[in-house]
């Protein structure tokens, strides 16, 4: 290779500093560097796929849709929780790019984290439509909503469970019992749904210390959310409602609530 060609190759490549962890041998993770081509339309995920295909087939990471919909390729890229399919290598040129597993979750292998904790918490906030009037006959007709009623919750329904907010949340990092941003935002999504009547049931769970009030409004969840769900806003609005509910319970007679 001529000197010129070598210089061009260096220009058109970028180094990925990837965290590796092999559960059977390693006691703690270490960093491994890979040089991948730097192309304008390549994301961090494309870089990792290049590593897997051409350099090191032992690298483990999760991905599926490559278009920011499935929520499985979340990683800490350059220290920031990101969907690796939506984070471009060129934004980090000349590099190197640090690629780590999401924070606040146990690492199973390399970039793969264990999100069992979230999956256990999610059903506790009852993220489905609850009706007081017992079982509704689904064949009886539709529950129509006005555009305004849809607008009330649609933002909070965009969550793809990518876990970036949990990774960004220092409260969750320090207290793993905290219900966490995505789950609370999803509870709020159903509370705001005009067809739902389960707000009281959800509040019973979330009014606990590890629920709503665990949140100290750092706001980082909203900053990293790839779908603009704004979990921080959902939680603060939820807190406001919970506080109003408590005041009402003290002030008003039973019938007035």
């Amino acid at each position, binding site marked *: 290779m001529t000197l010129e060609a070598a210089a061009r190759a260096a220009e058109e490549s970028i180094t990925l500093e990837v965290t590796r962890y092999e*559960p059977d041998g390693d006691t703690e993770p270490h960093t491994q560097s890979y040089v991948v081509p730097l192309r304008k339309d390549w994301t961090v995920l494309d870089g990792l796929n290049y590593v897997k295909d051409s350099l090191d087939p032992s690298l483990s990471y999760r991905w599926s849709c490559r278009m920011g919909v499935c929520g499985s390729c979340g990683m800490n890229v350059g220290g920031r929780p990101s969907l690796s399919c939506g984070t471009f290598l060129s934004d980090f040129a000349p590099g190197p790019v640090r690629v780590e597993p999401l924070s606040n979750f146990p690492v199973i292998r390399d970039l793969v984290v264990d999100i069992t904790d979230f999956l256990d918490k999610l059903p506790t906030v009852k993220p489905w439509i609850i009706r007081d009037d017992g079982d509704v006959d689904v064949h009886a007709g539709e529950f129509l909503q006005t555009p305004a009623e849809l607008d009330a919750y649609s933002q909070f329904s965009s969550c793809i469970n990518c876990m970036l907010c949990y990774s960004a949340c*220092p409260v969750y990092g*320090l207290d793993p019992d905290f219900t966490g941003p995505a789950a609370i935002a999803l509870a709020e999504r159903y509370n705001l749904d005009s067809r739902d009547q389960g707000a009281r049931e959800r509040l019973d769970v979330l009014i606990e210390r590890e629920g709503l009030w665990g949140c100290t409004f750092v*706001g980082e969840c*909203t900053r990293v959310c790839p779908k603009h769900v704004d979990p921080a806003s959902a939680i*603060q609005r939820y*807190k406001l409602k919970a506080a109003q509910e408590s005041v009402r319970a003290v002030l008003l007679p039973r019938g007035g609530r």
Partner: protein
Amino acid sequence: MSVQTPGRSRPRAYRRPVSVWWWLRKPTYLLFVLRELSSIFIAWLVAFLVIMVFSVGRGADSYRGFMDWAGQAWVVVINVLAFAFAALHTVTWFLLTPKAMALRVRGRAVPARAVVTGEYVVLAIVTVLVLWLVLR
């Protein structure tokens, strides 16, 4: 915490410890911690005000004694610091208010900018009122 599936052993997962210095990792974390710390200085300002009101109530001598104490260099330094933190507290919480309050007027969401502007207008009115009370 994680559920063990019967008949299947999970590989040994690595739990990363959270550093005591996590709040220095990002500017946004630092700003958050400073905002939380500002409450200590707000408490100091409240105590300062209460002590001042009491000394005014005890008469001119007591008030003069309070003023001498408040004029000491270290009290002034603390008060300047407390003012800076109070300003930080105000600005950050005003910016966050629209997130906690989803106001709707005649079916339309009130824009965040309008909520924040409203807060500054109220702050200005209260400030003018207090200034008028003190200086008249």
